C-alpha cells in the first residue's frame, strides 16, 4: 500500500489557509488525490495525475491556496532523459525498424531436384514474378499462388512444391520424365560360342542358317543378320535363342572310407571368472589337459543390472573328448557321392540357361583308399554369341 502512485503521478504541495477545503472540492470535482499527508498546519502534500494539475490549480486558486509541484512524474522524467539522449533513442528505433524490415525480406531462393537447365529456367521465371533475393516477402503473393503461377510458366515439370521457411523460399521440383526410347542395336550375326549339336532354335529376327541336330563349331553363324534378296537385301540385328547339346568330362577323386569326428561322452568343465578382461580360473584348472583330442565349447554369462552390462562375466568352458572314426561305406554310396560332387563341379562351370540332360560313368578305379571316377555329361545350354556386322568392307 505504500506505493500507490503510478508512473504518471506527480507529487504536489498545496499551501493555504484551509487546505482541507481544497480536498473537499477536489472530491466534488472527482479529482483523485492519493497519499495525502499534512506536513505543516497550512500545507498538504499529495500525489495526483499530471493531467489533473490545471484543475487542482483552479480549485486551489478559489481557496487562496497555491500549488507547487515538488516532483515530476516518472513519464516526464523519461521524456526528459529521452530528449537528452535523442541519438541513442533514434538508434534503437532505427535498429528495430531495420530488424523488422530485413526479417521480411527474401534472403534465399532454393531450388531442389531440377537439372541445371530447368533450374535456370525456373530461376528466370521466378525473377520475372518478383521472387528473388532482396524482395519483400509481404509484397509477394502467397506460396500457393506462387506455386500455381510457376507451374503455369514452366514447362517440363510435373509438380513444383513451394514452401516458405522464414526468409527462404524453398522450391521442390519434380521433373517430367519421358519414357526412354528403346536402344536399337547395330546389325549383327548370332554365332556359336562352342562346339555343339543344335537342340532347338528360335529366331526372333534374322535368317536361320542351321538345322536341328546339326553339328556346329565355335564361330559358325547360326542366325544371319543379312535378310532379303537382291535390291531388298538389308542388314538387321539378329536376335534369337539357340540351345545346343554340349559335352563335359569330369574327373572326381573321393576317399572310400571317410573319417568322422565323434564324441565319446566324457567331458570336463572349467569355470572362469572374467573381471575387466582378466580371466581368473576358479575350478577345474586342468580340464584342458584331461583329453588328447577334445572339442572345446565356451559359455559366457554376462552380469547385467537394469540393462547395463557389468564388466564381470562368468565363463564355463566344456572340454568334450572326441575320437576319429572311419566310416565304412558301400560301393553304391561312394558312386552316388561321386556323382553329386561331379554335378556340383559342372554347375559351377556353367553359366546362364543350362540343363544337365544325362550323366554316364566312363571309367572308375580304386587306388590307395581313394576312388577315381570319370563322368561324361550331356548338357543342353545356350550357345549364342553376338558378332557385329562391319559394313563397308
Amino acid at each position, binding site marked *: 500500500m505504500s506505493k500507490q502512485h503510478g508512473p504518471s503521478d506527480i507529487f504536489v504541495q498545496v499551501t493555504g489557509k484551509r487546505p482541507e477545503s481544497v*480536498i*473537499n472540492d477536489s*472530491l*466534488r470535482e472527482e479529482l483523485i488525490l492519493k*497519499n495525502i499527508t499534512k506536513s505543516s498546519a497550512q500545507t498538504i502534500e499529495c500525489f495526483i495525475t499530471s493531467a489533473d494539475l490545471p484543475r487542482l490549480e483552479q480549485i486551489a486558486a478559489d481557496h487562496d491556496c497555491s500549488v507547487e509541484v515538488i516532483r515530476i512524474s516518472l513519464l516526464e522524467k523519461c521524456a526528459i532523459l529521452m530528449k537528452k539522449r535523442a541519438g541513442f533513442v533514434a538508434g534503437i528505433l532505427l535498429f528495430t525498424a531495420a530488424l523488422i524490415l530485413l526479417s521480411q525480406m527474401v534472403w534465399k531462393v532454393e531450388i531442389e531436384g531440377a537439372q541445371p537447365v530447368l533450374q535456370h529456367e525456373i530461376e528466370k521465371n521466378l525473377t520475372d514474378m518478383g521472387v528473388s533475393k532482396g524482395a519483400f516477402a509481404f509484397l509477394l503473393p502467397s506460396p500457393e499462388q506462387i506455386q500455381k503461377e510457376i507451374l503455369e510458366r514452366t514447362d517440363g515439370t510435373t509438380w513444383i512444391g513451394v514452401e516458405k521457411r522464414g526468409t527462404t523460399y524453398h522450391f521442390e521440383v519434380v521433373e517430367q520424365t519421358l519414357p526412354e526410347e528403346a536402344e536399337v542395336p547395330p546389325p549383327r550375326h548370332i554365332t556359336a560360342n562352342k562346339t555343339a549339336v543344335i537342340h532347338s532354335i528360335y529366331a526372333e529376327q534374322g535368317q536361320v542358317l542351321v538345322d536341328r541336330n546339326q553339328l556346329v563349331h565355335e564361330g559358325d553363324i547360326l542366325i544371319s543378320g543379312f535378310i532379303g534378296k537382291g535390291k531388298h537385301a538389308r542388314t538387321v540385328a539378329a536376335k534369337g535363342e539357340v540351345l545346343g547339346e554340349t559335352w563335359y568330362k569330369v574327373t572326381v577323386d573321393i576317399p572310400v572310407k571317410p573319417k568322422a569326428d565323434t564324441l565319446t561322452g566324457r567331458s570336463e568343465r572349467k569355470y572362469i571368472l572374467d573381471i575387466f578382461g582378466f580371466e581368473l580360473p576358479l575350478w577345474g584348472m586342468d580340464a584342458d589337459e584331461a583329453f588328447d583330442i577334445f572339442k572345446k565349447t565356451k559359455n559366457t554369462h554376462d552380469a547385467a543390472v537394469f540393462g547395463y552390462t557389468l564388466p564381470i562375466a562368468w565363463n564355463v568352458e566344456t572340454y568334450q573328448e572326441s575320437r576319429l572314426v572311419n566310416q565304412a561305406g558301400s560301393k553304391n554310396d561312394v558312386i552316388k557321392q561321386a556323382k553329386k560332387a561331379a554335378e556340383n563341379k559342372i554347375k559351377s562351370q556353367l553359366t546362364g540357361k543350362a540343363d544337365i540332360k544325362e550323366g554316364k560313368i566312363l571309367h572308375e578305379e580304386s587306388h590307395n583308399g581313394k576312388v577315381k571316377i570319370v563322368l561324361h555329361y550331356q548338357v543342353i545350354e545356350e550357345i549364342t554369341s553376338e558378332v557385329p556386322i562391319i559394313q563397308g568392307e
Partner: protein
Amino acid sequence: MFDRFKQNAKYWVTGKMNLPEDVLLDVPRLTMIGQLHLHVENHRGVLHFSKELVRLKLTYGELAIKGHDFVIKTILPNELLLEGTIDEVSYLNDKEAGGIHE
C-alpha cells in the same frame, strides 16, 4: 418535519425487516484493520486533517479519528482510506444542536 418522519420510518423499516443499517440509513460504514488502516464509506467530506487528528463530516454529525502519522491513502467522493496509527475513533453527535459545520 418531513425529514424527521422519513428518518423515523427508515429506522422502523430496518428494525422490523432485519435489513443492514448501512443500506438504508445514511450512516458511515467503518472497516478497521488493527490500528493500521481505517476504511470509511459514506462520509461527506473532510473537516480537518492533520497528522494527529482527522475530522470527517457525516450526514448527521461528524467522526473524529485520533492517532498519529496519518496519511490519506485514497479519497473518493464517499470513500476514504486512512493509514497511520489509530488510537481513537469517536462520533461527535450534535445533530440536535444542528451541528453542520462549514
